[in-house]
């Protein structure tokens, strides 16, 4: 019988809530109170998330974020800064124990395994993507997805961004590139390093189409059936507690 995991499907929330949900599921999974879970979600308002060790002032143009109404948040995972464009980006997260037969104990191998599901999903859309170690996925030699993982007492939490139709110009305004430097030349250079699904396929791709492809990618890669579900009461309580952390100046501006 096919193993069933929970799917928390396309919740649209603000940055502190999204990060609180990911951590809450990992904490609940640690106590065996919740099933293995995949989430696909979008951020409203758009947000920049920075890695655990990054300097907010070095990585984020805070004035541009304020001007455009873009939230800024620090993740519990390492890695780099990501622009989560409400109009053009899907984030996924996976929570499962590292003891799961499909989950390599080795962290680098597990990146490859989980990113393999995203690559499958992109393949369902016609995007030929490949894993770029340590934590990226490329298509046509350009980055189309970035991923970050943490582990807490045997539980794996990996989340990542999939660029569907992200505004690349806005991306490099809110990430730390001064406005004076945003010349056509620089944007052209940036565009050579980053792509998105719409640009790669040269056609419109709806969020629903991208979501369906990613969900099927996870099901096929992990040989699971994803059943739509909701957060448990305990998880919702944890989200409330963690929301306060993720909203706090001490957390966001700690580095």
């Amino acid at each position, binding site marked *: 019988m096919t193993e069933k995991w929970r799917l928390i499907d396309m919740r649209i929330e603000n940055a502190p809530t999204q990060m609180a949900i990911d951590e809450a599921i990992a904490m609940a999974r640690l106590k065996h109170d919740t099933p293995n879970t995949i989430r696909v979600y979008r951020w409203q308002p758009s947000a920049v998330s920075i890695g655990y*060790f990054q300097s907010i002032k070095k990585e984020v143009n805070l004035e541009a974020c304020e001007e455009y109404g873009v939230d800024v948040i620090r993740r519990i995972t390492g890695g780099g800064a990501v622009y989560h464009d409400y109009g053009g980006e899907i984030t996924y997260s996976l929570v499962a124990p590292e003891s799961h037969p499909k989950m390599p104990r080795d962290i680098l191998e597990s990146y490859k395994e989980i990113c393999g599901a995203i690559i499958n999903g992109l393949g369902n859309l016609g995007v030929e993507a490949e894993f770029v170690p340590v934590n990226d996925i490329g298509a046509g030699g350009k980055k189309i997805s970035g991923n970050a993982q943490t*582990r807490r007492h045997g539980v794996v939490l990996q989340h990542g961004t999939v660029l569907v139709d992200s505004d690349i110009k806005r991306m490099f305004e809110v990430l730390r590139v001064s406005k004076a430097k945003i010349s056509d030349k620089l944007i052209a250079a940036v565009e050579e390093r980053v792509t998105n699904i719409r640009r790669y396929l040269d056609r419109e791709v709806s969020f629903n189409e991208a979501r369906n492809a990613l969900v099927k990618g996870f099901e096929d890669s992990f040989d699971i059936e994803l059943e739509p579900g909701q957060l448990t009461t305990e998880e919702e309580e944890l989200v409330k507690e963690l929301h306060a952390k993720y909203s706090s100046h001490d957390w966001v501006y700690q580095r």
Partner: protein
Amino acid sequence: MKAEYKVPGGKLLACEVEYDQAITGIKIFGDFFMHPEPAIVDLEQVIHGKKREELPKAVSGFFENSDIILFGAAPLDFVKVIEMALDSE
């Protein structure tokens, strides 16, 4: 004093350092991965109070005596970026 160092084939490391005969302030930044993440504070505490010449042994020893896993940077890359900051003035 500040420095940034892109590890060849790896991630970006950066630091801000204060030094008065020994390290009196240290903050490490970057897009590397360290598991568990909160260990960065322990690393900064180990570095605090060390003289420049004590850094390689202190930092190597810190990682050798722990279960910390690093991706995108090696222990001595942290020493390198600190030394670059110290040399910046």
